[in-house]
């Protein structure tokens, strides 16, 4: 059978433009602008004052550092999983493949409760570590574990299709030309995968910073120690201080945006290098 391939006709500008503008404004732009104006009510100095609070700064630091570590872990583990899923065959592979999406669909609070059960002092894994005096739940380690769980599918699902598309000839020719397996991986495969790995890790990172549901259960929420930034937003709301809450949200949003932007830039560079 002959498959005809020709480019899509890019007409119907009216409809597509209308839909895009409508959707992005209704779902993204207008709510974000609302957030922006809400927090501007207290002015820039007001926002700075919010962040002069030591407790908020330590939460800011904690949120970003645990987000960073969990993204880093996801980079390696996610890549490994994607690789195994594409390149190897084993029983129940389809089942595992489906399981990976679970963190996307599961309410994060459920994940948080489940993880806390397992990793607390008397949990299956937690009690094991407790013998050596290592506490997991109610410490930053617990938070990292929760964030690894919710960020994991981002890396797997962005890298997986790229690994699938890798032409077999690439590796074969590299090996034929005398490259070691490590050289083949490092010099031939990794540059191809790098952009998607970055993209997935970036998404996992951005998601981690704002994660609330799974973290509040496992973190213990001790101010200055295990209190995350989204919890402080809830705290402010509980005191009906909408402006302070939205200013924290705004700072989180801007920081995440800068991170995403940098990652996109890196990613673009990496893919340019390829071509």
């Amino acid at each position, binding site marked *: 059978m002959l498959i005809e391939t020709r480019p899509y006709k890019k007409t119907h500008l009216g409809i597509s433009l209308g839909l895009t503008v409508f959707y992005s404004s209704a779902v993204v732009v207008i709510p974000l602008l609302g957030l922006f104006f809400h927090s501007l009510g207290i002015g820039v100095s007001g926002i700075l004052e919010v962040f002069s609070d030591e*407790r908020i700064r330590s939460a800011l630091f904690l949120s970003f550092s645990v987000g960073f570590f969990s993204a880093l872990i996801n980079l390696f583990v996610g890549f490994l999983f994607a690789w195994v899923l594409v390149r190897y065959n084993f029983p129940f592979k389809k089942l595992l493949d489906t399981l990976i999406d679970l963190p996307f669909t599961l309410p994060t609070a459920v994940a948080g409760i489940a993880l806390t059960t397992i990793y*607390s002092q008397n949990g299956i894994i937690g009690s094991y570590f407790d013998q050596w005096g290592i506490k997991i739940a109610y410490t930053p380690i617990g938070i990292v574990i929760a964030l690894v769980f919710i960020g994991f599918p981002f890396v797997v699902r962005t890298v997986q299709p790229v690994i699938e598309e890798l032409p077999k000839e690439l590796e074969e020719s590299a090996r034929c030309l005398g490259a070691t397996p490590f050289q083949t991986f490092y010099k031939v495969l990794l540059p191809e995968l790098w952009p998607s790995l970055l993209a997935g890790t970036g998404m996992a990172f951005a998601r981690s910073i704002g994660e609330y549901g799974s973290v509040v259960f496992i973190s213990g929420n001790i101010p200055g120690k295990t209190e995350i930034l989204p919890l402080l937003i809830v705290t402010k709301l509980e*005191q009906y201080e909408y402006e302070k809450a939205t200013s924290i949200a705004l700072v989180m949003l801007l920081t995440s945006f800068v991170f995403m932007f940098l990652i996109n830039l890196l990613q673009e560079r990496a893919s340019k290098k390829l071509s």
Partner: protein
Amino acid sequence: MKINTLISKIKPGISAILCIFLSLGTLSSLTAESTFLHVSFDPTRELYEEINKAFLKEWKAKKGNEFAIQQSHGGSGKQARAVIDGLDADVVSLALSYDIDSISTKSGLIDANWQKKLPNNSVPYYSTIVFLVRKSNPKKIKDWDDIVKPGVSIITPNPKTSGGARWNYLAAYGFAKRKYKSDEKATEFVKALFKNTSVLDTGARGSTTTFVQRGIGDVLITWENEAKLSLDEEKRSGKNTLEVVYPSESIKAETPVAVVTKTATEKGNLEKATSYLEFLYTKEGQSIIAKHFFRPTEATVTKASAKEFPNIKLFSLSDLGETWDSAQKKHFADAGVFDAIYKTK
């Protein structure tokens, strides 16, 4: 062949139309079913399920018709915010009068004099703050003084996010203030208490889970009804690992109710809302309340259930010389006592 192409041509159209109808359907069902809404806080879920059934039975006997009561539960402050932001509640029952006051001042949906409208300052039932400890009380916890000793691990929710936690805090503070007759001593006391706290969950139920299910901590500071519920649940599953300890003194945790006058009037539910709340004060309503471990206020029911509720010394917020507004400002607002506790640490 022709039919196939025809189907494939009209398929997107059909699915688009279906999508529109489906979304319209959900939207209309969301708006049409806003009948009678009761917005409450977390631990009252089971209580109001039973109250609603009993009330509707009585309403039907009196008026001959029936209606559906929808319940919404969540953290008290969160629920108050939802009502302020437009959740069309007909009645609210919250953990603190501060939260109902906030709805009143911030949205005007509830009359400013709401506390005068129903008996007993609009408080049909109350509770108090007690301790839940492990079986046979290994740390020998008898009173508030015992839990601030070094080496005791306390579980209590975060007063910044939980109404119940604010009662816990004020119970401890009030105990110390009454015992040592000094604000500074009382502040020192709550400081020591939070130094011993190992997990600050966001709500009362979360703390119960941490203490009971995860086995963390030596003592859980909690609502009396929540403690009794935990014991009840253990009994049902055949376990026996917990004990309730009543301190020498504790706070009278008053949980008020109010008609959201403006919303109820607009929805034509004012009469229903008023008699719903009045039902809570009837003998039947009060017995259901006692059954769910909240302390009743009606004399005969109080007498009948006296065995359930040990007679401990209770002080109220006004006994401490505070209103919710002043307590909130002094203790829980930014840069208040609670913030200071964690700053000096």
